């Protein structure tokens, strides 16, 4: 009934609309649009306000003409001007005022806000419009491609996995995560924040912008502002997204025939007889090939709901949002999932004219069911290992699964032996004879869960006792409750002991984090004449408690979900428990001074003093002092510039210098020489087995140890031209990080003990970042195109010469082969160090380059050299937006150029899994190649596996999003009390252009010291997204 009424209403409205257009009396309108200097405004849109389809565009003289009903109102608008509504007249002269919105735009800076035009530092902003409609699950992902100088390192793309953010290269041999500040709350992990609740993210890239955060700002600062209510009538918005994900790149693998042919090439004792035996045993039917990618991967579904309400008046505002994110990844069996429920409440109220209070609160409940990835096959003793590598390495002649009455003899024997083989829902047995574990067995063999609750927020009070003076007291807090759980079922997945389990181990761990920070600061601004002075001073104290407990049983009583916990041990089970509370604290004082004259000359200085607690730095060395200065010159405000003003609306030159620190690699009393005690140290008696405990210092102390310091110089330029249609921001920076924390330093033996870590290395990052955008409107057709590009040159400039072996090798290696990532003076950080392939000999065996010139031709450590680097030469992003009437269209792409990838999916033997590499292998008829003949992985071949033959260009260009949206005309939707209704569909990650033969050129084994090393991880999926957004 209701529906019918609605329909009736809709029809009625349409009829009224049509009749209104038809019945009016038209007049001919001719007019000119100029700016305040009398210059014509070209391309301005003149439309009839109540009938936007009736309109015209001004020509090169600023003139237009159209027919309009008498008494109609015309809307005149153009980019860079304040739009006006005027009654239609036959002759019109319209003067448009400059739009100063861009000048007045404010950005969030540390402990305050600043007009964007007054900024003297290098700050990039990502706005809500860059996040809305994206299918990303984590906020970090919104930075990629949108902000030059910010790069993401992805160690896994599985649901719930969080990429690592790097700002302006990599500035440390250890952790170099940026600092996140969410509404003033300092955070090192923002994974629990719903991207939909974000108003803006400001990346403070240069030292001067970040220096207000001192000892935590050395790796850049990302300020995150959540949405607040706006003045006016409240609104309620509901967003819904549904996406279907699947493998973005499906690699072509070998067929059974190719696989067998390779096996024969690798092993001459493997002959046709063996193949016949495979067929006779029923292992292979002699024809078919199993596509193990299809066995492992299917489609994933993500559903996301967000509902928010906001509003405000002169005294206060509120913003409330509830979000639900539910992702089931593309691996079959729905055990790669991420679920998150989020709530945000932001509110403020002006209680007195001089007193305002407010709060920002974020709550999240999350649960991740992770799969093991990024681990080499056969490596590290991980049960149910990396199914991504399994899917690529399992022989294709192996059948996927068998009906119970068609089991191969050997599997029947396994069952008869009492082994627990898994079956699918139809009762078919998964193959246990593949040599590797079946992907579904790997997934089913364990229950894994990381889950918890995170509650964080701030409470603040602003006092304004005097005009221009605002004193803020702000309490920030985080309460996290993070848990991990796993349970390994009894199962038999194959002969290798890692592919089966006879016990039922269960494990739980719990970490609770209680953090609070108390900050008090005063902002003061004062203008006199053409001078504006600003000052800020404050202090901050923060305290963090981490409580960790864990328990484990080696075997549960029963393989039953009701017994799958630590609480139900079998009689034979060996339990273990752990627990520890760790406390850390920080005390800081900070201040900032700004001065500007006539909006032309801008000066700013900041200073921060940070004291670390004794777990980080020795007491006498705990204070760090971080200064910065910056200056700006707005040339476009100079009198002499006025002739150019019509073309160049804004031009500012910026320069900044500053020092920031990082203590993130200093946790755990690194400097101290704590005393090791050994209860069985020495015995002074021969007659009884008793011991005297020994005390011996664990290491030499290093009372001089201090924070890593980044010193950065930045020169920048902000330019807007053609009535702000074109805007350009460019920066050049040089960031030198010194005093890196280096371990394994040799000291003279007379010192008697091993050295404590020392400040022993420097890294330099330099680069240019450019953001360029053009936006315009032709009638009711809007378009914008914006792009950004960032170059990077990274080099280790100094390393303490007493470091063992004169370079640091990454501990993250490949089984049997070693680690390729090295940290060494004169090279980019964690460059790939390995052998160079000289040629393949007449048998197709690799001959490595004898770079050391060893007369005996021995290839050893001295023949290794740089064979690649994981960091790109430049990264870029491109966004194209089109709008016409209610239709919007967005294309967003990003890319990376000049980065290398080290491909290593299979390392036990030199056997190829990817068809395009297999096709290039050496054969007697294909000798002009660098891919050696397949063979067993013995020593010389393993050196080849650590050679440049496995380093590939990882450059890529990925179209991350193609989105088409339609906003229904409000006059239709208003009838059902909807202010705005937008529908959209999007193809995310559908197109990738790369020469990299692996699964995903964006994968790294870890973000610290194995960047660009691809052991096979959960790859980026492509997604088909449908969405709707309704505002009431």
């Amino acid at each position, binding site marked *: 009934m209701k529906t019918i009424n609605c329909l009736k209403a809709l029809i009625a409205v349409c009829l009224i609309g049509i009749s209104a257009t038809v019945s009016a009396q038209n007049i001919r309108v001719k007019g000119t649009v100029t700016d305040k200097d009398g210059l014509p405004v070209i391309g301005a849109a003149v439309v009839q306000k109540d009938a936007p389809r009736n309109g015209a565009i001004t020509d090169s003289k600023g003139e237009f003409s159209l027919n309009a009903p008498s008494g109609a109102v015309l809307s005149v608008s153009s980019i860079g001007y304040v739009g006006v509504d005027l009654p239609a007249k036959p002759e019109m002269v319209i003067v448009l005022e400059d739009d100063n919105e861009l000048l007045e735009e404010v950005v969030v800076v540390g402990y305050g806000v600043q007009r964007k035009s007054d900024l003297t530092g290098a700050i990039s902003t990502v706005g809500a419009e860059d996040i809305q409609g994206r299918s990303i699950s984590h906020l970090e992902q919104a930075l990629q491609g949108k902000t030059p100088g910010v790069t993401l390192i992805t160690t896994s793309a599985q649901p719930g996995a969080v990429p690592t953010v790097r700002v302006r290269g990599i500035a440390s041999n250890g952790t170099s995560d940026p600092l996140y500040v969410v509404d003033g709350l300092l955070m090192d992990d923002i994974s629990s924040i719903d991207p939909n609740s974000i108003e803006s993210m400001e990346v403070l890239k240069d030292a001067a912008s970040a220096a207000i955060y001192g000892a935590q700002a050395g790796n850049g600062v990302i300020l995150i502002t959540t949405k607040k209510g706006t003045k006016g009538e409240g609104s309620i918005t509901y967003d819904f997204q549904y996406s279907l994900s699947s493998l973005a790149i499906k690699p072509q693998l070998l067929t059974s025939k190719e696989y067998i042919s390779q096996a024969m090439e690798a092993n001459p004792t493997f002959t046709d007889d063996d193949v016949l035996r495979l067929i006779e045993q029923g292992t292979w039917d002699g024809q078919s090939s199993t596509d193990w990618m299809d066995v492992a991967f299917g489609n994933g579904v993500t559903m996301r709901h967000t509902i928010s309400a906001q509003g405000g008046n002169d005294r206060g505002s509120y913003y409330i949002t509830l979000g639900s994110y539910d992702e089931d990844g593309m691996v079959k069996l729905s055990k790669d999932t991420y679920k998150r429920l989020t709530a945000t409440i932001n509110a403020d109220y002006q209680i007195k004219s001089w007193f305002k209070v407010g709060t920002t609160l974020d709550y999240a409940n999350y649960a991740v069911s992770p799969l093991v990835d990024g681990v080499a096959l056969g490596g590290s003793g991980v049960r149910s290992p990396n199914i991504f590598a399994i899917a690529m390495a399992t022989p294709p002649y192996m059948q996927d699964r068998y009906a119970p009455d068609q089991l191969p003899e050997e599997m029947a024997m396994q069952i008869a032996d009492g082994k627990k083989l898994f079956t699918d829902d139809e009762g078919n047995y998964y193959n246990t004879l593949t040599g590797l574990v079946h992907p579904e067995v790997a997934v089913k063999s364990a229950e894994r869960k990381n889950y918890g609750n995170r509650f964080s927020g701030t409470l603040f009070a602003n006092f304004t006792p005097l005009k221009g003076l605002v004193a803020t007291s702000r309490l920030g807090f985080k309460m996290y409750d993070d848990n991990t759980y796993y349970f390994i079922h009894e199962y038999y997945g194959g002969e290798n002991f890692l592919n089966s389990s006879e016990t039922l181990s269960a494990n739980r761990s719990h970490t609770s984090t209680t953090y609070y920070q108390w900050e008090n600061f005063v902002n003061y601004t004062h203008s006199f004449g053409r001078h504006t002075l600003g000052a800020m001073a404050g202090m901050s104290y923060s305290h963090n408690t981490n409580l960790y407990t864990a328990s484990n049983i080696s075997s549960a009583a029963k393989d039953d979900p009701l017994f799958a916990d630590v609480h139900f041990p079998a009689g034979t089970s060996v339990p273990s428990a752990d627990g520890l509370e760790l406390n850390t604290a920080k005390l800081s004082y900070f201040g900032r001074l700004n001065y500007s004259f006539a909006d032309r000359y801008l000066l700013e200085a900041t200073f921060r003093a940070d004291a670390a607690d004794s777990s980080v730095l020795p007491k006498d060395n705990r204070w760090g002092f971080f200064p910065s200065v910056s200056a700006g010159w707005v040339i476009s405000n100079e009198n002499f510039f006025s002739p150019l003003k019509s073309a160049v609306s804004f031009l500012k030159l910026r320069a900044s210098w500053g020092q920031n620190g990082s203590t993130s690699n200093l946790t755990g*009393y690194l400097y101290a020489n704590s005393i090791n005690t050994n209860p069985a140290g020495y015995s002074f008696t021969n007659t009884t087995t008793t011991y005297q405990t020994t*005390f011996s210092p664990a290491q030499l102390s290093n009372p001089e140890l201090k924070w890593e310091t980044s010193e950065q110089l930045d020169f920048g330029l902000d330019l807007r031209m053609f009535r702000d249609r074109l805007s350009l921001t460019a920066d050049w920076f040089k960031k030198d990080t010194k005093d890196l924390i280096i371990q394994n330093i040799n000291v003279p033996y*007379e010192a008697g003990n091993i050295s404590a870590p020392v400040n022993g290395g420097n890294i330099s990052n330099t680069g240019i970042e450019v953001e360029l955008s053009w936006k315009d409107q032709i009638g009711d057709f809007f378009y914008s195109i914006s792009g950004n590009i960032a170059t990077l040159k990274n080099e280790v400039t100094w390393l303490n010469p007493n470091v063992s072996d004169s370079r640091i090798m990454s501990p993250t290696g490949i089984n049997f082969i070693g680690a390729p990532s090295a940290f060494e003076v004169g090279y980019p950080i964690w460059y790939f160090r390995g052998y160079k392939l000289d040629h393949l000999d007449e048998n197709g065996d690799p001959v490595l380059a004898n770079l050391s010139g060893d007369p005996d031709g021995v290839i050893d450590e001295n023949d290794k050299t740089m064979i690649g680097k994981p960091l790109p030469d430049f990264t870029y992003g491109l966004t194209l937006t089109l709008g016409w009437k209610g239709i919007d269209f967005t294309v967003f792409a990003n890319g990376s150029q000049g980065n290398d990838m080290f491909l290593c999916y299979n390392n036990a033997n030199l056997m190829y899994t990817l068809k395009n590499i297999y096709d290039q292998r050496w054969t007697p008829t294909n000798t002009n190649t660098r891919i050696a003949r397949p063979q067993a992985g013995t020593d010389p071949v393993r050196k080849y596996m650590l050679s440049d033959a496995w380093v590939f260009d990882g450059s890529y260009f990925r179209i991350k999003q193609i989105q088409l949206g339609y906003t229904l005309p409000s006059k239709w939707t208003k009838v059902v009390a909807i202010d705005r209704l937008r529908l959209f569909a999007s193809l995310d990650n559908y197109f990738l252009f790369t020469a990299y033969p692996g699964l995903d050129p964006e994968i790294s084994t870890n973000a610290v010291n194995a960047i660009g090393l691809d052991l096979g991880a959960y790859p980026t999926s492509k997604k088909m997204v449908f969405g709707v957004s309704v505002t009431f």
Partner: protein
Amino acid sequence: MKTTYKLIALLAGFLTLASCSQSLLDIPQQGVQSEGNSYITDADCEAATAAVYRAWRHAWSGNGESSTDQTTYCNLLWFKTLMADDSFAPVHTCQQDISSLAISEANPWVAAIYEFLYKTVYSCNIVLDKFQPESDIKIRNMAEAKVFRALSYYELITLWDRVPLIDHVMTPENNYQCAPATQEELWAFVVKDLTEAIESGALSHKKNLDDKDMGRMTEEAAYAIRGKVYLTMKEFSKARADFDKVIGSKLYGLIDNMNDLYHNEANGCKEYIFENIRHWDNSNLYQQDGWYGLEDNWLFAYGMNAAPDAPYKFVSFQGWGTVNPTKKLYDAFIAEEGAFSSRRLASVLGMEDLPALKVTVDQTLNWTGNEGYFRFKWLMNMDDEWDQAWTGRLNNTPCMRYADVLLMMAEACVRDNVSADTYINQVRTRSGLAPLSGATIADVKKERFLELCFEATRWQDLKRWEEFEGDMHKELADKGKKIPTTYGHEDGTITVTYVDNPNPAAGWQDTDIRLPYPLVEIQTNKLITSGND
């Protein structure tokens, strides 16, 4: 007005807030003791002193398999033995280089020995720096630390000639740079430490000759070490006086059966002046720092086999034969003692001795670095090593025997033209050899060579005698110039061949009189250079 009040209240509030105490940042480290609270009581002093014994045990007789690099098996006992003319190493280039006297500054064992000795000095310095002589225990322990420090320096001086003199725990200023001291300064320091330790009167004494339970450094041991130092300094009468204190104490003697030495039977025996103590303790296997017996086991992995009912409890699974006897040693035994002397049978065996031990050569194989002889002294047996876990030996290792003291006394007497017969003959008599009358320096040297073979005294003996008789040049001239290989045949016979050592540094060169400073030391300590002498 109102505004002013508000402002004042606000500023006052802020000042209160801003006065956060820095003491909030003082968070003590959990799970560890700090330097500040670890070195106070007598019990603390015992723990710091036990660390000295442990450091010395590591230096003298190994670290089991608790580390993984080439230096795992390194210890002074093997190192010094390999340098001398009683043994040769078959495998591991760094060991073969040592036994060929082709020792470069990059040799990892040179670095390891240097490091172990300074680590012992460091442990001693902690005891001496952190404690005051304010209780009996502390006074005794400080005296013990001085003895161990002197002992470490004895090894450092005799091996490297000039080394930095570190008499306190170093602090990081100057990056631990330290210049070598002169030999005079170093010897004076060693004598001072030992003298102070002895004169403190605080060192322990065994209760009686059969006291098996004295696990500490005794006053008699300190005398024995000082006597050895004086002997090396050629102050023979002082040396004799010190040895006389040991001999006159009647707390030490020679055990009857030499075969028991270096095995559990001899733990704490009257012949050990001092020893590294270990226990056969399954729950603390890896804490015993047992040297890695498998490494110095016979070449069982290479074509030898012991019958299950062999009279000796061989650990007959594998072995590398790291310390192989030289033919020169075997021949010296035969020349002096005849074919079947008990001392030779307790020290070095030939092929002819294998049938009695039910050991056979069962296939054709070759043993590099072997001249057809087998070391029997300190050959590990089933009671010595927890071989299932490969952790290393669990029996005590003597660092000085009474036989050594008697022979050093004999040497000092001969040098002083006093009769040495009493002392040398005690040693000979135990082995059933005829007593000498009017023993000469040559007799003493021969006796030391045979009695103390494989016991890490020979190289320092040769160096001590060099200035009198040029012994080092004579005895080590051809050391390692040729690498022997023994071919075992299935019929149980062997043939031995020799090839020239490809390493041009092999054999005695004048620079071999002292060890090179380790490479890392040269790189990190700018006050030491490879040519610094």
